[in-house]
């Protein structure tokens, strides 16, 4: 219970926002983007932060989910849920097949391989224009409905994304304290030592890779329906890097780190709009300052400070009573 106290606060805040500001553009529209980025960052953190395997191609799986939904519903008239399932199956198979050879690589080589994967998938979206609509993308997805209720307003989309995001965050928090989470941490620590304890490291790495890919894929499907439009631009190499930045900025290996990183990187551009031409420059400067002064990540640094203060306070009160 105590362990999840932070999560409950976060969940309540997320669900309260639209009740407090039902007509706000920031809540409903920006909120969906924030939720999307949170799920993507949290899923990437499972792979990067927990298992210690870098990926510079995470946007590829996000894109594959989005395009599966868009292409199968628009070009082939498939039911949206069926299309989403087809996307999930395709991504499961693809990521599983790729995971074994790719995750045998380490460090810079793994970074290169995943980077390549991201670029290839992006080029595919651009080039396979008879399916994907090429650089212009495709639009006109059917309305997604849950148990007969169509998701047809910004507010309903917010709820959908918020619940999906909260479920993903809860899952990620729980996995850290499970047997699988310890296996991931062992792989991160030392693969040899992990094997000595009976952890099948190749299997663990492949499972977390597939899992994080599938989570990104589902997010992509929802995103495509919500945007009602997909184009290759949303799934480029730059977006993969942005996701890595979110995870690192918030604090590698911490679920809430990924959450905070995602929120910050999603909101900062909106706030910085007032600086007009200097927006990107200031954005970069902020990132640099954070990483120089808080190299362990924003959230992890905040958490440490919080516990230090808490400790000092409890020590202080103990002194008083004694």
């Amino acid at each position, binding site marked *: 219970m105590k362990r999840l106290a932070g999560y409950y606060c976060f969940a309540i805040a997320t669900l309260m926002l639209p009740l407090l500001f039902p007509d706000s553009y920031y809540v409903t529209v920006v909120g969906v983007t924030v939720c999307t980025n949170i799920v993507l960052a949290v899923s990437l953190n499972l792979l990067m932060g927990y298992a210690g395997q870098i990926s510079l191609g995470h946007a590829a799986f996000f894109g594959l989910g989005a395009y599966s939904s868009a292409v199968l519903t628009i070009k082939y008239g498939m039911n949206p849920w069926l299309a989403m399932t087809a996307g999930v199956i395709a991504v499961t198979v693809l990521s599983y097949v790729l995971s074994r050879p790719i995750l045998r690589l380490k460090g810079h080589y793994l970074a290169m391989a995943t980077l390549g994967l991201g670029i290839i998938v992006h080029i595919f979206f651009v080039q396979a224009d008879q399916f994907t609509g090429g650089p212009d993308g495709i639009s006109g997805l059917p309305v997604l409905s849950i148990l007969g209720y169509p998701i047809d307003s910004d507010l309903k989309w917010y709820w959908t994304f918020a619940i999906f995001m909260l479920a993903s965050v809860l899952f990620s928090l729980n996995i850290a304290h499970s*047997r699988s989470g*310890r*296996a991931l*941490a*062992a792989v*991160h*620590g*030392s693969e*040899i*030592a*992990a*094997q*000595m*304890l*009976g*952890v*099948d*490291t190749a*299997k663990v790495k492949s499972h977390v890779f597939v899992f994080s890919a599938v989570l990104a894929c589902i997010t992509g499907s929802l995103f495509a329906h919500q945007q009602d439009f997909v184009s290759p631009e949303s799934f480029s190499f730059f977006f993969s890097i942005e996701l890595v930045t979110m995870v690192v900025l918030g604090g590698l290996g911490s679920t809430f780190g990924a959450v905070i990183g995602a929120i910050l990187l999603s909101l900062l551009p909106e706030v910085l709009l007032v600086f007009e031409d200097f927006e990107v420059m200031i954005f970069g400067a902020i990132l640099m300052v954070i990483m120089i002064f808080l190299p362990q990540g924003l959230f992890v640094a905040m958490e440490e400070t919080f516990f230090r203060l808490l400790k000092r306070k409890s020590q202080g009160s103990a002194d008083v009573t004694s």
Partner: protein
Amino acid sequence: MLHVKNLNTRYGPIHVLKNVSLHVNQGEIVSIIGANGAGKTTLLVSISGLITPVSGEIIFEGQRINGISPAKIVSLGIAHAPEGRQVFSPLTVMENLRLGAFARKKASEQEIEDDIGEVFSLFPRLRERQDQTAGTLSGGEQQMLAIGRAMMAKPRLLMLDEPSLGLAPKLVEVIIKTVVDLNSKGTTILLVEQNARKALEISHRAYVLETGRITIQGPASELAEDSEIRRAYLGKDYRDISER
């Protein structure tokens, strides 16, 4: 229990183990002694499956285990406390111990708690430090953790690679005593030790490994009296040292 027959292991062009044959009977403590670079670690790593031997056989309880995955070998009942500690630094003592039980899929939470309690009663220091991250433990504490973690696998055969490396004499005693304890509770032990005198004292049998070949083998008490071994591994004045 464990039979190694004509084992050959190489790292690329370097031929490390040359026709090594040995066996460990149920209930024994068997030591392997040898100079630095003789291939002791390589032998243990070959048995636990982290490196695949080029030829020969490793048979554990009647089953051929060379070529199968390290994870599978652990679940068959062989645990390996590796050389140089190899604890998971960012994880706590508790988490490290729980990871030790990773291969015991069927064990209940209660059983694991009990086993952790047993490790703590052997190494009370670990109990005090249970929530500390392993990276911040002292070298000796890390060594205790590495042994405790291997015990958590509840192995029938426990392989220890230089468990007393770099420890103060008093801690060496604790470790040696723990090994004897574990053995008397039914765990068979394959021990690699630099401290050959101590190892021979507690072992039933021993093998001497010299540049990848077994050159001498026999009951530990006989080996301890062997003049060549005394000269090479125990040091001329080993009695003087031991009396201190």
